């Protein structure tokens, strides 16, 4: 009898279990979210796959609310199954929205443990709807979120832009010494589907509105010392009085930042490989030197341009602030780092060395 009682007591949790049972059958997995609007009037677009007769269709729902979470809850009015954003692949935020405090939209994603933190984040330019529905399904297939994920990944591999997941965005938004830079997407005029437009700079927790071009992004990745798998650039050089184009690929590099008072000297030693050089082999030593000199000048000029853009925007995506904070407290304590950064006297200097000519001998 006593044993029976014990057994019964032990069985209670099993009878009453399943409180948190959330059957996968009843979930509507959202893979793409777009946020636009401003605080107090947020519109969220959801895109989710739906199976109908062995076909996967991507459906779209839209909801408005006072905040991100409010709009997210609002959407359940419209969908047959529970909306689940734990499988989110891409989070799109319109450029205008990003100019206010980004954390306001990210907090919910960041806080709820069920959510995925490794989803990609990108800004978009233009109409959100056109990103959600694909008007030209032949071009990229129906799976838009998948396409965007891979697009972002590829652009990161080729150092065209940055690629951050939600976790990294959170870290960078809170980080004092480094500012966030997110890729910007736009609908390509010719292709009619999303393309990389550039890299948006952030200052503190909101976007500055300044967008770097893809070639500036490449220079930025060199200066940040964090290039993607491939980094290629084309420059015009003059050899033996003839002008021609040369394409080089980044092989390896070293950065050296010297900070003295207000002056920052950034010097880079970069090893490159020649990808394309129609003039012919680059065998002779003096010819290599000529090329190296011209390339170094051009890259230095590019860096200087980029620095002035960054300083004007007051955004430090290079992470200079981290070094300053760690080793130069007097400079760091001068005030808000973004302000200090704009006022600094920063000079960059690149030394290009041709390591490989691309042909064996």
């Amino acid at each position: 009898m006593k044993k029976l009682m014990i057994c019964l007591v032990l069985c209670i949790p099993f009878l009453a279990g399943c409180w948190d049972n959330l059957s996968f059958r009843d979930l509507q997995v959202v893979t793409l979210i777009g946020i636009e609007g401003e605080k107090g009037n947020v519109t969220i677009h959801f895109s989710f796959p739906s199976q109908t007769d062995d076909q996967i269709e991507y459906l779209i729902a839209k909801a408005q609310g006072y905040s991100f979470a409010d709009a997210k809850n609002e959407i359940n009015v419209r969908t047959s199954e529970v909306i689940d954003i734990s499988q989110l692949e891409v989070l799109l935020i319109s450029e205008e929205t990003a100019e206010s405090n980004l954390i306001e939209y990210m907090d919910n994603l960041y806080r709820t443990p069920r959510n995925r933190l490794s989803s990609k984040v990108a800004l978009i330019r233009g109409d959100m709807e056109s990103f959600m529905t694909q008007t030209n399904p032949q071009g990229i297939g129906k799976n838009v979120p998948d396409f965007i994920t891979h697009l972002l990944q590829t652009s990161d591999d080729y150092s065209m832009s940055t690629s951050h997941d939600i976790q990294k965005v959170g870290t960078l938004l809170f980080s004092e010494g480094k500012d966030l830079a997110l890729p910007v997407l736009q609908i390509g005029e010719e292709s009619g589907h999303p393309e990389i437009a550039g890299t948006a700079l952030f200052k503190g927790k909101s976007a500055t509105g300044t967008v770097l071009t893809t070639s500036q992004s490449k220079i930025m990745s060199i200066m940040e010392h964090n290039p993607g798998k491939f980094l290629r650039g084309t420059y015009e050089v003059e050899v033996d009085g003839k002008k021609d184009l040369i394409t080089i690929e980044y092989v390896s590099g070293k950065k050296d930042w010297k900070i003295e008072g207000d002056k920052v000297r950034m010097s880079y030693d970069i090893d490159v490989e020649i990808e394309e050089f129609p003039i012919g082999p680059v065998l002779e030593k003096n010819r290599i030197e000529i090329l190296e000199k011209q390339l170094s000048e051009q890259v230095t000029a590019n860096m200087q341009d980029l620095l002035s853009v960054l300083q004007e925007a007051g955004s430090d995506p290079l992470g200079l602030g981290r070094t300053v904070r760690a080793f130069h407290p007097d400079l760091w304590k001068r005030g808000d780092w973004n302000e200090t950064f704009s006022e600094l006297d920063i000079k960059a200097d690149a030394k290009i060395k041709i390591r490989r000519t691309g042909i064996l001998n």
Partner: protein
Amino acid sequence: MKLHITSLQLFLMLFVAMTGTVFTSFQSQLVIAAGRDAWWLFLMQGLLIFPHLWLFNRYYQDFKWKGLIAFLYGIYWFFVMASFLGYIGYTLNVWAYPKTPTFVIMLLVVIVLFYLMMSRSETMVNIGVILIPMIILFMVFVYLGLKEAVWTNLFPLGETKFSDLQKGSLKAQMPFIGIELFLLLRTFVPGKVNSRKVMIYGGVWLLFFLQMLVMPLLFFSVEEFRLIPEPIMYMLKSQDVSFMERLDLLFIYIWLAWSFIAMGIYAFSILHLLPQKIRIRRSRNAALFCILLLAVGTQLDSKEAVRMSGQFLQYAHLVFAIALPFLVISGNRIFGKRRGEESA
């Protein structure tokens, strides 16, 4: 029958009991209190474990587990267990089971604990072994975060105010909780324990906690720690591994198993403090103990209670791990000597 364990088993039990529940949560509090200085503050404090354990190992025989002392420690360990239980309930509620009543989660934990208490002593001594592969796996995945780490996050040093450092050093006591178990467990090891072994153990312990502190510090920005109470779990969550999402979910269960076993070791210690005659009716007493634990544990499952009990533990730890052993040991040595002289 007197229980004999080897020194290796002693250290394994001690390690599990000391790391158990706290290793995911102590970082946040420490970093919030001491900022970037947390890591060296902890390093300095952690070095204290060497003399601490050495003294314990030297004078453990002078610490008599009798009467009031045993009772006090029993109560203290019971409270440690209850607060662990509360913390487990709270964490699971937040992290994975928001709708399940905390009571049910705790009941499950207590059922396992009851079964553990009913087992042979050898089981309790050895069960830590199943954690070893899990710990290794855990470390490997934590180290996957290294590629995102930012080294400059460790600097600059010495920015924190002295009062904050003081607060921080109190928080840095958390990982030490349980060190007094050494005094009890040591009595089961026959013969001498080499002080070199004690030092190695201290080193392993220090290394473990130091990397548990430094890794999140490298990974997150200091301001972020306010948002994330379990930085290690967040780190794992953001790892992108191809075979599954949400590594943290897997690891929260490793952590759970870890905590279960740590609690088991505390329970084991309490059982051994009980006088012989109570120990006889084992199943009834274990059941009573578990019910009591459940009753106290369910009171401690809100955010506020978790914080309060954590704070209480920090102070209680100072009393029970440092002050009381010191008093008892020195008292016993002085009186013991005098008595020895009288009889001689």
